[in-house]
């Protein structure tokens, strides 16, 4: 017994020595990544929060500690409220339409025997890999009210007078339109991947049971696509809350974006403008943390609402 126990202790000691060595190696491998994470991510985040508690100008001068004043100023500032509102309108307008359209496209592209399927898939994906800057400039010309292609087409069907980027009512929808168009291909590809994981047997069984296409979609396809829908919804909402490039490039007049009359001033541009154009770095940092909290809360709510267990049974 005692020799067995001794052997077991020896094994345990050996095991724990080996375990310790492995653990040490694990930490050794983790250290470089952890170092970069701390230096390039964690420290800047903490420092940005520190800056947000000060009247910190981009121009060197004293930076007095002002506590949460930047936060309270932001939450009572009409321009900040307007930019948050614009960002929400953009997100609520662009994300559902984009996801619905790309799901529809994915279902069509998923049909066996669809002629030129590869060509269509490639065509829809091209905007995804095209630079936002190039896309924005092309759409500025397409949306030009007098000579632009969009209004020329609308005139053919009797719709006139939309001033797009020059109108406070239409400028934000114009940017949404471009974002939807650009993001369609990416969402479509992920939906296609999701569709192709759904077992054919389930669809065939449903058909044998007398389900029509709509019933199959509603009761089989849609629930089984839930992981893809959750992923795309969460990432699309986060991306939309951080929209910047099209809103800036499509609305800049003489160096200032977000017009007309702040109708396209979105949150990230507002942060950039405050920090780097108005030199109010402390205020800009506070705005960035407000956006961070908004995104965090919305993401948690989304995950709670949309994630549900499912099994192929």
């Amino acid at each position: 017994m005692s020799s067995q126990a001794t052997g077991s202790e020896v094994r345990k000691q050996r095991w724990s020595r080996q375990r310790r060595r492995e653990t040490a190696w694990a930490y050794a491998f983790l250290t470089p990544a952890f170092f970069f994470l701390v230096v390039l991510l964690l420290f800047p985040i903490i420092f940005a929060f520190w800056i947000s508690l000060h009247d910190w100008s981009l121009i060197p001068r004293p930076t007095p500690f002002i506590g949460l004043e930047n936060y309270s100023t932001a939450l009572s500032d009409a321009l900040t409220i307007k930019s948050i509102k614009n960002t929400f309108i953009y997100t609520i307008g662009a994300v559902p339409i984009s996801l619905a359209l790309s799901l529809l496209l994915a279902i069509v592209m998923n049909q066996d025997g669809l002629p030129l399927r590869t060509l269509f898939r490639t065509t829809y994906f091209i905007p995804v890999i095209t630079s936002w800057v190039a896309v924005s400039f092309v759409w500025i010309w397409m949306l030009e009210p007098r000579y632009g292609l969009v209004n020329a087409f609308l005139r053919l069907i009797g719709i006139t007078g939309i001033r797009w980027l020059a109108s406070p009512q239409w400028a934000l929808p114009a940017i949404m339109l471009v974002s939807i168009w650009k993001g369609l291909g990416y969402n479509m590809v992920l939906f296609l991947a999701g569709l192709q994981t759904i077992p054919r047997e389930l669809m065939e069984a449903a058909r044998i049971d007398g389900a029509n296409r709509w019933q199959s979609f509603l009761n089989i396809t849609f629930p089984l696509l839930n992981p893809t829908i959750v992923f795309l919804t969460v990432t699309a909402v986060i991306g939309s809350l951080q929209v910047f490039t099209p809103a800036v490039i499509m609305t800049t007049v003489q160096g200032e974006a977000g017009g007309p009359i702040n109708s396209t001033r979105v949150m990230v541009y507002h942060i950039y403008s405050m920090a780097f154009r108005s030199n109010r770095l402390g205020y800009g940092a506070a705005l960035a943390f407000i956006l961070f909290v908004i995104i965090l809360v919305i993401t948690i709510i989304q995950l709670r609402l949309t994630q549900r267990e499912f099994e192929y049974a």
Partner: protein
Amino acid sequence: MAKRMDRRYFLRLAAVAGGASALAACAPATQPAAGTGVQETVVTAPEGAEKAPVTLMHWQHHAASYVQAVESFKARFEDENEHVTIDFQSIPWAEYWGKLASGIAAGKGSAPDVFMIPMGLIDEYVSGGSLISVDENIVTTSQIEQDYWDWTVTRGKKDGLYYGLPLNVQTLLIFRNNALFEEAGLDPAEPFLDHADFYDKALQLTKKSGGETDQIGVNTNYYSAWLTTLFQQFLQREQNGMEWIDPATNQVVWQDYPEIMQVFEWFCQLSAEADDSAFMTGQNRFTLGRAGMEIGHPVNRGTLRVTAPDLQYTITPFPSRSAGQDPYTAGSHWMWVVGNWAPDYNVAWEWVYYCTNKPAQVTWVDVAGDLPSHKGLNDEPRFRQNDNDNVVMDSIKYATPWEWVGWAEWVKEFGDARDRVVIGGETTQQSFETLIININEVIKTHTLAS
């Protein structure tokens, strides 16, 4: 391959260094007086001594023409001053401010020793104690005042000292499309009588049919330039050169003068009737021959040469408010400044002056399209080869500087003020009052440190 130092050379160098150290120990400090940014005394190496190597970090925002000019100065300056190396970096516009701020925050070694900032921000940098005043051994205050047009240096002056020398000097003038003028039966060379005459001509050049615009009379989308010129024009020409910020309250005086509100209203009407924000959005309508006129900087001549080589245009002074008044234009510029962390102020200012003095300005005019801020160059025949050149060069003589305190926010506030009226349907009175409130807040934000 590494060079080896021989013993004789080493002893000579050591002797010189020792002598220089002894002299330096007896000399007053060269650091700025605390909090003033004023350079008190300059130590120069004893005659015959080898100068210690100096590397100056020079940053400016990128423009191809600027790079060309600075590179040519750098090559010559380094040739003439073998101990000096200019570490020149041309930084893309989008990154310039972020990089400048983080560089300055990181301090000596990371901060540029010489850099460029717009004139509206100089005061804030000086108040923050970041800049060192112009070295009197390089160029004296009286020399600056004698050589440079006052408006090109005055915004760099604080408490009797100059903190920067100008570059990117520009005025604002009206560019006319000759063909469109002639088509409308107007003479492109005839000067404007006053604002009303300008307005009439703008309307005659506007073509709208069936609710659609085919041609605009005047491109007004440089809103900040228009309103700055109009507001300053009234105060400068009709209120004896009054500045638009009252030093006692640190707020604009616009509300005290109904005429300023009137010119704002005049501009909004002009922009609504002779322009159309929805016409060719995002495109340069003057360059494309679809705008009869636009306000622009003389540097635009270079742009037009490249983008619209066939466009025939005439440059005229900005119209006066009433007939017979002296012409007026608002002048803008950037400044080259020296950070008080520079390793050698003397050399840093020598370099700045080298790039902004009279001979250098000839290069700036030729290569970058700048206007000369040196008085002695105004009558140079090479800069006055045609009528447009004459209008441009004359405008330097009667300009006064933009009086913005801060910078980018003014572009937004002026643009928003116009948009609220022309697009949003707000009354000019309401919009003007909001403009004043917002601008006063901007001024306050930028003068906290003063």
